[in-house]
């Protein structure tokens, strides 16, 4: 055992505080050596230990009748009946994607896929949630094209359809973009695999790609410290993804899982071999001993430190049943992949690592894992918050020309059609896609059943900046509403909490407020949060990003045939709106785009009203009384109507809408009041819809009808639908070419 203990200075260089280092030394009764310090530093990094968030995250509801696996495993799982489970999780890859957009985004997709199939689930759908700076920033176009190409490059080649997502542009992300990737998989409920090592003497196998110097101190440390001018030096540590190998790894692992060979399995993500072995041992209350000489390597001369911390992609760690080694090798040989026994499960609850016959690590598991610090960080409302929320509508002039206002909103980067993005993603592979990107939620059929899953991911970070509590609630209810508009019952949530530096009281305040918002919204809608991810230190030169708690909601459709899309179907149908429009313009896209104002309070949410609105919509779709349903979000009623006219695959349809001028017209047209859904239906179904709405005493307004080839709203708006479509659908491509549409 190499005794050369390290000093405090080295510990600080590894991102530990003096106190943390002292505590650990006390816990193990000696000073760790350099390799052990490397292990400690990644295990105690924010990324792996959740030391700043764990205490707060406890507030999130994560239980419910459908929950099969809550937070704590590689991914969450909820029952969808028929003995099947939906396994899903969302994860961030923000800093790597800023440094190398293509491979950063690609390896983000690869990582989340492994989290899901490591549980035995076949990945069937991906979503991606993206945030970039504005187009006047010199790097934005480079970052957007790289990230989108990377998400597609990996997902398309690995054979999992990318069926939805979101993309927003805001100054606040100019130097710190967000790339959050979501994967959903399907597994037999009684065949869920977990990462809990057990069985002293069981072999530990390493499978997948060989180990190289990739990403050493990459994800773990990158994601745990702010960006500064030193960042350049971290560049070479960015990993490169190999989706082809991942595809083979998926097939090999799922095939092996059909046999009775596996005790526990876990992907090697951030902090690779170290975190996977420590976490597996910790969950099982056992020890693990591995010999680095047996690890398949890509290049010569890797030090024990490098091998333990390497973040080479497409690798998994398996605890197999004693005697099953050959079975494992056989399956991986079939798929032309490496499989090597590198160690075994032990009873001493230590991590022991051999290299060249020498023991280079001998650490007790407990202090590395549960022993990680938990901080109650200080929090304080930003002093400017009240000022930020002050908005006097009186000073805001109503537009002279509402047609032009609508057109410029349709061309704005945050509202324009996302087709430029999702046309670069395969949304057919797997053969289950029912509703492709372009409607409120994607719908994916569950093979072998009549069922389908609806998916949406959402977050309006402008709302979150103005009021993180309301903003986070909105993210939950909008994602749920999107799923409901497709005809699905929301059954589970996963969240990706992207925030600034948690050591800053203002950021911690934003974080705590957001958690409260998610908690209250999920509780009201009885939605369990079964998995998630926290990404702190999203700052550049001290400026935090707008708080961005991204929420993905998974919904269940009992009969795949009974689902709904957002666009108008037939000339002559009635156009109605569920919910009520209030005079709310705070934080709206309208104020930001047309008045350059980002302030005020975001639209308020009455959770009981939201609940009723969703219940009415779901009942109406299930009874088959409505032809289309579209949730109202950015751009409000006018933009929502426009999208219903032009977002369908066929010829665009017009509409004649009456104006209800009870409030100021721009608020009525472009305000973003929550809990509203636009529907179209046959007039003969109106009375039935009224009854349903009545049962939940939910306001229902008949706005007009689908008619002609122009969108007419009172005497304020009158535009040709083809004109609208060409502007809306071409805008993002134009922004990407550097032309403002």
């Amino acid at each position, binding site marked *: 055992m190499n005794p050369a203990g390290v000093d405090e200075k080295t510990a600080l260089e590894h991102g530990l505080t003096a106190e943390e280092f002292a505590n650990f030394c006390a816990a193990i009764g000696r000073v760790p050596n350099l390799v052990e310090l490397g292990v400690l530093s990644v295990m105690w990094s924010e990324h792996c230990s959740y030391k700043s968030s764990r205490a707060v995250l406890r507030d999130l509801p994560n239980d419910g009748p459908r929950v099969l696996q809550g937070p704590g495993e590689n991914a969450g799982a909820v029952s969808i009946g028929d003995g099947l489970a939906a396994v899903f999780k969302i994860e961030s890859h923000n800093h790597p994607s800023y*440094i*190398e957009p*293509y*491979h950063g985004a690609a390896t983000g997709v690869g990582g989340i896929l492994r989290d899901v199939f490591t549980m035995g689930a076949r990945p069937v759908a991906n979503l991606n949630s993206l945030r970039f700076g504005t187009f006047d920033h010199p790097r934005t176009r480079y970052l957007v094209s790289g990230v989108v190409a990377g998400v597609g490059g990996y997902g398309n080649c690995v054979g999992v359809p990318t069926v939805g997502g979101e993309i927003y542009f805001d100054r606040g992300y100019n130097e710190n973009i967000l790339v959050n990737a979501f994967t959903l998989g399907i597994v037999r409920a009684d065949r869920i695999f977990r990462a809990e090592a057990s069985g002293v003497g069981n072999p530990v196998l390493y499978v997948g*790609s060989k180990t*190289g*110097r*990739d990403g050493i101190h990459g994800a773990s440390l990158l994601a745990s410290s702010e960006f500064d001018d030193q960042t350049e030096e971290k*560049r*070479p540590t*960015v*990993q*490169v*993804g*190999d989706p*082809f*190998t991942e595809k083979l790894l998926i097939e090999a692992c799922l095939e092996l899982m059909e046999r009775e060979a596996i005790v526990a399995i876990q992907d090697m993500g951030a902090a690779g071999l170290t975190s996977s072995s420590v976490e597996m041992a910790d969950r099982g209350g056992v020890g693990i001993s591995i010999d680095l000489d047996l690890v398949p390597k*890509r*290049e010569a001369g890797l030090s024990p430190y490098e091998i333990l911390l390497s973040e*080479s*992609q497409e690798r998994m760690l398996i605890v197999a049943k004693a005697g099953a080694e050959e079975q494992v090798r056989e399956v991986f040989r079939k798929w*032309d992949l490496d499989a090597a026994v590198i160690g075994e499960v032990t009873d001493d609850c230590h991590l022991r690592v051999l290299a060249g016959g020498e023991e280079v690590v001998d650490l007790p598991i407990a202090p590395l894992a549960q022993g990680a610090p938990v901080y109650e960080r200080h929090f304080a409302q930003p002093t400017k918050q009240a000022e930020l929320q002050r908005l006097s509508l009186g000073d805001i002039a109503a537009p002279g020309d509402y047609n032009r206002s609508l057109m410029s909103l349709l061309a704005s980067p945050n509202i324009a059609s996302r087709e430029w993005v999702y046309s670069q993603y395969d949304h057919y592979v797997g053969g289950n896609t029912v509703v492709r990107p372009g409607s409120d939620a994607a719908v994916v059929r569950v093979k072998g059943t009549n069922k389908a899953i609806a998916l949406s991911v959402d977050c309006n970070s402008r709302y979150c900046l103005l009021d993180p509590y309301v903003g986070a609630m909105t993210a939950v209810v909008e994602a749920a509403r999107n799923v409901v508009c497709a005809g699905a019952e929301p059954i589970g949530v996963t969240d990706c909490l992207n925030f600034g530096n948690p050591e800053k009281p203002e950021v911690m305040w934003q974080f705590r407020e957001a958690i409260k918002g998610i908690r209250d919204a999920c509780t009201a809608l009885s939605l369990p949060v079964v998995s998630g991810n926290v990404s702190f230190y999203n700052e550049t030169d001290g400026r935090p990003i707008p708080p961005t708690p991204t929420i993905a909601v998974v919904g269940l459709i009992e009969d795949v045939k009974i689902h709904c899309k957002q666009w108008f179907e037939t000339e002559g149908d009635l156009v109605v709106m569920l919910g009520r429009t209030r005079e709310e313009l705070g934080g709206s896209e309208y104020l930001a785009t047309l008045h350059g104002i980002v302030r005020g309070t975001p639209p308020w949410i009455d959770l009981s009203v939201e609940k009723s609105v969703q219940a009415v919509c779901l009942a109406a779709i299930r009874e088959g009384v409505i032809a289309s349903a579209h949730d109202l979000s950015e751009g409000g009623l006018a933009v929502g109507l426009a999208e219903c006219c032009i977002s369908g695959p066929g010829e665009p349809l017009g509409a004649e809408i009456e104006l209800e001028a009870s409030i100021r017209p721009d608020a009525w047209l472009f305000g973003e009041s929550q809990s509203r859904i636009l529907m179209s239906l046959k007039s003969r179904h109106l009375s039935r819809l009224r009854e349903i709405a009545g049962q939940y005493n939910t306001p229902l307004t008949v706005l007009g009808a689908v008619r002609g080839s122009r969108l007419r709203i009172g005497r304020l708006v009158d535009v040709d639908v083809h004109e609208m479509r060409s502007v809306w659908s071409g805008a993002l491509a134009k922004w990407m070419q550097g032309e403002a549409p």
Partner: protein
Amino acid sequence: MQAKVYVTPKAGVLDPAGKATERGLHALGFEEVHDVRLGRYITMEVDGDTADVAARLDDMCRQLLANGVIEDYRFEIGESGVE
């Protein structure tokens, strides 16, 4: 002038394409090959004289032709039409 640009994966950076190609060559019976690395070879005509063409090419490589994070590049400048 004629310019030839060579873009290669940085040493140590994973090169899945090279890896797959090496495997393919082995499968075809070319066991004697190893360390296969796949890069790009870009040829172009550039107006201007050697000195400033070199400077411009360096810009092109850094801005577009090579990805400095994972790739190295070098270039040669010669008279047009000469192989």
